[in-house]
């Protein structure tokens, strides 16, 4: 039995300072009992016998005299086992579904360790989500980290739920798949929505939920994604499952980090966020991937709400630099009743180029995607011009672009919440839309592919 330390020397927001400790190590977890309740804390700075401790459940009710603190001798760990599937835990991995805790001999350090680039396998297998703008233009690849950049009030939750439903019911449903869901500062009704969706689509036996809700302790949020990813890595690499990790909302996570950083009195960099925001986010996102010679994979679908819809805000900005692309939702499309309101131009999947085309989807996929991007970018220019000189004054080609733009949004981007399109369907819609433009406008497509697939709109309507 290790020593208990009585009392504290300072309490400041979520941080406490304990003096006179011996043998404490950096990043170690402590148990603090306050009025018969045990809280967990983590050492985030240490000077000789003085430790700065971050308390996960918050410091409410603590006084300088009423605490007893015990060192555990190890960093934050959780017990992992296959039995986690179907269970619900709080933000630090304690069960909240009324069932007993996970009993397992395997306890893993939640901080994880960096994956050696030599041991990684470059992800190449695409995941069919059944959503045209994702499958067609920003294809999701197994082992990728592809965030959804959204705003408050936009349907990112519905989109994530649709991806989960449709991706899990894809052609590979015989393989072992599971979902790890980590909520950070999520509203109760949103968490409920996800739980219901998982139940309705019959996947709830394959879901592990870690919930830190909006009224749960802020500091716990900092540990929630790490706990979830530790579970995901165990299921992927030890139980050989394909894991889809949903992390929502990264913005709340970064806010929590800022709160702790400012209590610590650190020098802020941009917008008050600590200088290590990039490294810290990277330590989450980089835990996606595939290990060579291992059947499992960890795919991440983080969701973040851009403060004030600003994509240059540090959180989406730094995220975009780490993740392998992004799916950007756009308020004006949503205003026009388009679901999913994905703005394809800033959206991107970096791993797409190696996971599509001949042998994966179809040989014309990359060309169609490039052409749709390029033509839709032109639509933006034409719309800007029409705003100035009026639609009537546009040249005939420009008018075709306007029509193309409308049809693209209405037929390609927009689709039902239950609609599950195959990649071939998506490509067929793409060709129908490209058929609305004269052939000489299609400058991103190889001549041979044009010969094979291009049909001008008049003839193409029979399809």
């Amino acid at each position, binding site marked *: 039995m290790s020593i208990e330390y009585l009392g504290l020397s300072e309490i400041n927001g979520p941080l406490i300072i304990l003096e006179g400790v011996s043998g404490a190590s950096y990043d*170690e977890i402590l148990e603090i009992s306050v009025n018969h309740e045990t809280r967990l804390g983590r050492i985030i700075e240490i000077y*000789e016998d003085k430790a700065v401790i971050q308390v996960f459940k918050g410091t409410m009710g603590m006084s300088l005299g009423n605490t007893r603190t015990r060192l555990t001798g190890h960093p934050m760990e959780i017990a992992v086992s296959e039995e986690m599937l179907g269970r619900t835990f709080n933000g630090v991995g304690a069960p909240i579904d009324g069932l007993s805790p996970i009993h397992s001999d395997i306890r893993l350090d939640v901080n994880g*360790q960096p994956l*050696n680039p030599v041991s990684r396998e470059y992800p190449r297998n695409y995941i069919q989500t059944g959503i045209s703008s994702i499958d067609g233009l920003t294809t999701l690849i197994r082992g990728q980290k592809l965030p959804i950049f959204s705003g408050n009030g936009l349907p990112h939750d519905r989109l994530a739920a649709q991806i989960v439903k449709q991706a899990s019911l894809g052609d590979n449903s015989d393989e072992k798949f599971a979902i790890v869901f980590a909520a950070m500062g999520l509203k109760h009704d949103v968490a409920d929505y996800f739980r219901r969706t998982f139940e309705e689509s019959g996947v709830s036996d394959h879901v592990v939920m870690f919930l830190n809700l909006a009224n749960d302790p802020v500091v716990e949020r900092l540990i929630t994604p790490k706990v979830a990813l530790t579970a995901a890595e165990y299921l992927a690499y030890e139980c050989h499952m394909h894991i889809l990790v949903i992390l929502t909302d990264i913005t709340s996570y970064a806010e929590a980090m800022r709160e702790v950083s400012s209590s610590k009195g650190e020098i802020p*960099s941009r917008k008050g966020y600590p200088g290590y925001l990039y490294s810290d986010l990277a330590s989450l996102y980089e835990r996606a991937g595939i290990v060579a010679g*291992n059947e499992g994979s960890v795919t991440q679908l983080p969701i973040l709400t851009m403060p004030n819809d600003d994509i240059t805000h540090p959180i989406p900005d730094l995220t975009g630099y780490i993740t392998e692309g992004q799916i950007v939702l756009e308020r004006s499309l949503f205003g026009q009743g388009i679901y999913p309101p994905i703005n394809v131009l800033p959206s991107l999947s970096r791993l797409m180029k190696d996971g599509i085309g001949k042998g994966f989807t179809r040989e014309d996929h990359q060309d169609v995607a490039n052409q749709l991007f390029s033509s839709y970018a032109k639509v933006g220019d034409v719309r800007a011009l029409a705003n100035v*000189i009026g639609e009537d004054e546009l*040249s005939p080609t420009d008018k075709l672009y306007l029509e193309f733009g409308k049809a693209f949004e209405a037929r390609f981007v927009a689709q039902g919440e239950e609609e599950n399109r195959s990649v071939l369907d998506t490509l067929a819609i793409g060709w129908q839309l490209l058929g609305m433009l004269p052939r000489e406008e299609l400058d991103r497509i190889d001549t041979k592919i044009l010969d094979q697939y291009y049909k001008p709109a008049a003839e193409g309507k029979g399809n």
Partner: protein
Amino acid sequence: MSENQYASGTIYGINGPIIYIKGQTTFQISEMVYVGEEKLVGEVISLTKKRTTIQVFEETSGLKPGDKVIGTGGALCATLAPGIINNIFDGIERPLREIAASSGKYIKRGFSMTSLDTEKKWRTTMKVTAGQIVYGGTIIAEVPETPAVVHRVMVPPDISGKVTFAVPSGEYTISDCLIKVRLKDGTEKALTMTQRWPIRVPRPVTERFLSTQPLVTGQRILDTMFPLAKGGTAAIPGGFGTGKTMTQHSIAKWSDADIIIYIGCGERGNEMTEVLEDFGKLVDPRSGNLLMDRTTLIANTSNMPVAAREASIYTGITLAEYYRDMGYHVAIMADSTSRWAEALREISGRLEEMPAEEGFPAYLASRLSTFYERAGMMHNLNGTEGSVSIIGAVSPQGGDFSEPVTQNTKRYVGCFWGLDKSLAYARHFPAINWLNSYCDYISDLTPWYSENVSPHFMDYRGRILALLNTESSLMEIVKLIGSDVLPDDQKLILEITRVIRLGFLQQNAFHKDDMCVSLTKQFKMMETILYLYDVSRKLIAMGMPMRILKEEGIFEHIIAIKYDIPNDKPEMFEDYRKDIDAFYQHVMEKNA
């Protein structure tokens, strides 16, 4: 070596990657140290009478106050010997393949391992014999390191004297003694293939001289519009998704450098895996060897410890300088220097230094300049010529070029290849904006282009750039009133610049004939496009409307040249010239 020979101390405080030792110690500044029981590698970064500050290149969780810190007596050094090429290291030159082999998929801490294989026997051809006088840089022996690279084993820069003993040619490991040298002070020094060099100190050279050769990359917008000199420096700034990494990959694949050092500094793990997989399969068109046979990767991905990220840039450039000393042209891809600057900021913040702009430390500019100034075309100590070119990616926050890293980098680089978000959104790649990019090497390189490609090369380049600039001002008008109202000669400019943009500037990195384009083809493409422009201008001057010219389909035909003419068939350009003449005739006959 006994422990008490060097300075030592015990940990007092820990804050992230920074640890403190209380009181006055005998450590030197920049000394490499081992921290704790696991012997984590660290470096002394500040000394006062009250405390010593050390940055640790590995994760510090589990360290305790009271743990031992042991000095090594020397600065953080890179190990230089055969075995560097076709290898992958972390930021402090630990071999990732060996780490994976012995510790599994994760990078474990405190992994002490020699950087290079000391067991492997290399086929060594000796170049010096006993009795010879050798100086710093003298080539002692040659070792075929990979099919593409002959490793020239050199005398370390600070040693000179008479050779008293030399082994015969044969098979040796990197730690076998090759020669013995009697130094000026009379002592004898045994030399092996291995040198150690402090990573933060530039390796000495005889002199720096003006570079007049371009680093040919096979990328049209770079070679033609904004060429980089061998030994020059370039920055590629761009927001996320604009193609920094793709551009770096293209240059690493297709440039005519002898050695490529690819530094993945705080970037994605999958990207390094991609380079490893791709370069292990792709063949260098110039030599027929695998690309990996001339490449070394330094991978310190974003989730690896931040202090080692700061060091990775210096490790990379030290390796580059070492190969330059052998007489090679080395190109460094540093992806991304912003992550390195952020590592500086993170450590500076932990040290509670007074921040300058956006939280970056005030010494950001001077660190950047000392890094970029290590590039250059040099006369080496041994009389050979070699160069180090640096191509640094910059990831500006929010894609805003006014931020400190981009601005400070701009002051020290010769080429600025600005990536543009709107081009990337329209999937125009490489998304290098031709209006805000620049190149300082044009006048130095013009003679080379005139001699080796064509005397008209720079002239054509100028005309193309002028057309593109005119287009940009015309577009201002088009945005307000539409293109229909423009006079025909201006419509022609818009059409010909469309050909330039789509047919010349845009380049497909995945098309076999377009991924790497010879300078001859680049020149012929410019020539053909400008010929089309001249012919069309003649027709317009005769009063032919632009509408008729467009009907002929000649513009689309010329745009497709990049795919339709393979690199090895420049004679096909004649046919296109004839097609343009036929187009002229046809328009004249039809509308006479």
